[in-house]
């Protein structure tokens, strides 16, 4: 009992046969061998597995892969362009917005989704955007500083190429 699905991961189309109860997290890490998306709590609380579904953050542990059918997924592997880090990634490096690094992919994707719609977010908006991403090293100050600097850099660059704005290639049936 497998389901045939078509989805776009980081701009690449994939036709997959998946078990209907397989979470997207498992599909990404095991089937597609993209280990950048981390497994934390597996219950939707920690945000380590955050990916973007048509640009919106979701917990990959809560989404069945069948429900990614005809949608576009962005993972941390999809942010750099031609080996150049996206502004958000570069800002996390520059501001030491990470300690152990386990929450970082999820943090960066949540931040990317925020900056795609708000390039000059308030601190409150930044903190609300990453409320679903837990950093157990508790390095939130530098994470918030990273997001703020990424916003500045993106505004200075003045173009949208750095923020992922994936669109579904095929319209959802729903």
């Amino acid at each position, binding site marked *: *009992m497998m*389901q045939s699905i078509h989805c776009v991961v980081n701009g690449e189309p994939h036709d997959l046969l998946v*078990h*209907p*109860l*397989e*979470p997207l997290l498992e599909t990404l890490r095991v089937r597609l061998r993209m280990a950048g998306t981390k497994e934390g709590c*597996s*219950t*939707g*609380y920690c*945000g380590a597995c*955050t990916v973007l*579904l048509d640009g*919106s*953050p*979701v*917990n990959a*542990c*809560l*989404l*069945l892969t*069948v*429900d990614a059918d005809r949608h576009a997924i962005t993972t941390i592997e999809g942010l750099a362009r031609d080996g150049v880090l996206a502004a958000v990634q570069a800002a996390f490096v520059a501001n030491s917005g990470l300690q152990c690094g386990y929450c970082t992919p999820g943090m960066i994707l*949540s931040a990317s*989704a925020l900056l795609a719609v708000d390039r000059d977010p308030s601190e409150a908006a930044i*903190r*609300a*955007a990453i*409320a*679903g*991403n837990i950093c157990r090293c508790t390095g939130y100050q530098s994470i918030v500083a990273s997001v703020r600097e990424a916003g500045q850099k993106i505004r200075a660059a003045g173009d949208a190429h750095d923020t992922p704005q994936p669109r579904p290639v095929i319209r959802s*049936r*729903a």
Partner: protein
Amino acid sequence: MIARPLEYFEPHFLEEALVVLDRFDGRARALAGGTRLVPELRTGLGDVEALVNLKRIAELHAVTAENGTLSIGALTTAAGLCADAAVLKDAPLLAYAASTLGSVQVRTLATLGGNICCGDPASDLTTALLALDATCCVASLASGERRIALEDLLVPGGADLRAGEVLTRILVPISRAVFAYRKMATRRGFEMALVAVAVALERAGTRVERVRIALAGAGPTCLRAPRSERRALDALAGPSDLDAVAALAADHDSAPQSDLRASALYRRQLIRVLTRRCLDDVRAVPS
């Protein structure tokens, strides 16, 4: 690793879903946003034999306003409620409550119908809907559609659905009410309410016509506060003290429980204070 003995269905039409739910006679689970159900898959769903994924059914995603009623499909997500023009215009209380639910990630997935059916006694959405006097449409193959007041659908731990039934849409009467919503949690982001209070006030000029007060974290389900509502009708008409109204909500309309997150005593205090603040909020809105 997930245990996988379940039959899986992905209907595109409500009728198909009802046929499957009817065939399994209570041993099929409906899948909506998955924020509750998908983690449960890892530990097993007990004697559930089939999973019916409702996401492909277009009509369950529809939001329409006609004849003075807002009809919201049960599969509308929390993020959808925050962004939908009709919800923002005709049920802003619901849009606001939805914006306080969970995290960004969870709001992308979690649905209105799922939220109601999970029976969380601290549900932001259910509390807002109670203050909005919402009615639920429930469908089954055997009896077609029946309508039931949200209040009557809520039972501790879930929704009072019969075998084969599914919640399809939620009806909210469009009114000129003013609203207040206040929520207290142990932190600002991504936390369930210890207590939340929603108040809807309908006025005609200076006359107070209706007051509805709904409480989260005040009992085994989200609930209305009838004694407090009756007292508020008079109290809100004049300059009188609203403390007595809030005290009724806390002391007579509530039966809060103690758990890891807060004691019943603390919850009662919160109900009193937040109810008072909500009443102040709605009274401050010029009529």
